[in-house]
């Protein structure tokens, strides 16, 4: 369901920088439903990709065949991302904190990590340059600490400083889609707050999966469940092998 909800965050015709995993699935679902003119850009260089199969990686050959353009990676990062052409960036992360800072580098101390994660890849620059980013992650206290162990992708407050103060062009993670609720940034405080619940989910259940005193917007909206069509596309068409859909 999280994937279907994330897909709805994309508007038709938008230029999206697609990350690996669930974002990949969400973008392809959006393209198959309400956003047929979505322009999918992968950091690997494929622009306007129309994959005939669910890409296993962001460098899948199916992203190239039938795409509008293949750019060198230098052009992707300089002429598309740094140039400000990316409207939405999709990010995931092992840790997301109160201010939307994301960690995909290490759990624990950098020099002596308890868990070594893959690192930034393009995440740092996507978080800085995409006009807005949408984050997808399952709720879990370890995944939503008060503060991340390492800031790979900056959110809304870094040691108390705002994105504008630090000179970041993009608006940062405006929404965090989880498997139980949606969090959105409070533009005044830069803090992630609860704004919508999945059907049948209680605020307490959400709070239990968050490592800080979660604030809620006064009136919470309810997230519409995925339609039969969305579920069918996800399970039967896009990811029949359950490459990304674990549950």
């Amino acid at each position: 369901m999280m994937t279907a909800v994330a897909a709805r965050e994309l508007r038709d015709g938008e230029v999206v920088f697609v990350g690996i995993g669930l974002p990949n699935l969400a973008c392809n679902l959006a393209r198959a439903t309400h956003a047929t003119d979505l322009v999918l850009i992968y950091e690997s260089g494929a622009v306007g990709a129309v994959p005939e199969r669910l890409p296993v990686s962001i460098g899948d050959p199916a992203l190239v065949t039938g795409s509008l353009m293949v750019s060198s990676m230098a052009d992707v990062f300089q002429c598309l991302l740094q140039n400000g052409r990316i409207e939405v960036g999709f990010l995931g992360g092992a840790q997301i904190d109160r201010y939307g800072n994301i960690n995909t580098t290490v759990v624990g101390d950098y020099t002596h990590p308890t868990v070594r994660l893959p690192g930034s890849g393009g995440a740092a620059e996507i978080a800085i340059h995409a006009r807005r980013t949408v984050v997808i992650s399952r709720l879990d206290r370890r995944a939503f600490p008060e503060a991340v162990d390492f800031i790979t992708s900056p959110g809304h407050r870094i040691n108390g400083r705002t994105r504008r103060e630090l000179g970041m062009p993009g608006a940062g993670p405006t929404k965090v889609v989880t498997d139980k609720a949606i969090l959105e940034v409070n533009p005044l405080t830069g803090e992630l707050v609860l704004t919508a619940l999945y059907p049948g989910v209680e605020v307490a259940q959400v709070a239990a999966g968050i490592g800080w005193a979660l604030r809620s917007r006064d009136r919470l909206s309810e997230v519409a469940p995925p339609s039969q069509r969305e579920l069918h596309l996800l399970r039967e068409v896009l990811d029949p092998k359950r490459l990304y859909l674990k549950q």
Partner: protein
Amino acid sequence: MREAVAAHVRDGDTVVIEGFTHLICFAAGHEIIRQRRRELTLCRLTPDLIYDQMIAAGCARKLVFSWAGNPGAGSLHAFRRAAEGKGPALVLEEYSHFGMVARLSAGAARLPFWTMRNYMGTDLPRVNPMIRSVSCPYTGEVLATVPALNPDVTIVHAQRADAQGNAQIWGLLGVQKEAAFASDRVIVVVEEIVDESAIRADPNRTVIPGLIVDAVVVEPWGAHPSYAQGYYDRDNEFYIGWEKISRDPAALARYLDEFVYGLRDRAEYVEKCGDLERLRASERVCAGVNYGF
């Protein structure tokens, strides 16, 4: 390949085997392992399985990278063991993809550094002192910089080249061009050698000119388990299976014995892999364009 690696890859070298998911030259990586090169500084945006294998084989002293995972399948466990202090020591120098691309762009232009609007708010500069800054002489804006990366040797896999190494690549281009121009020595490995006339028939496809190439090696299936657009698909089962192999040092050692040390060359590897034909690319040939005048 044996001769090319013997001649151009030396202990202690800074080595780049590039290719973003596409055209990763496993054939060269395996030969470097076979020839037991040591103390290498391995640089790649995505170390991928090939560097996980080279790390496990003890070739590496240092790793320079930006995303060390097994794309779509899990972790690179030899890398993780080293990084988490559970394996042989490995020096890490870490950037983001943009940072690595910029390092190679500077190297290719033979400039000492490259400028980006990046890294503000991230912890990367805190743990990597090579990420610095410069002030714009026009606006005063403070921008991030990374130092040039100029490898001793770069190995580029391409779909085809002529005998001089004029190499043509289509599909994902990664940073193959930048890495080759940044390097002191360049080895081009191709799926097939074509006549110079085939290169000259479509000069806009040429990514690397022979004048910067030191050795040309023909190695069909040389990028397996990664892929070569128009030649063969990525062996995703192998990538998924690597999770299990690399998780267990003993299993990884067995893999190296069986598929690298135990084989003389790529031909034997292809034979041992068995049915690679299942990965053979379908026909999606585009139309040509007119170069007449």
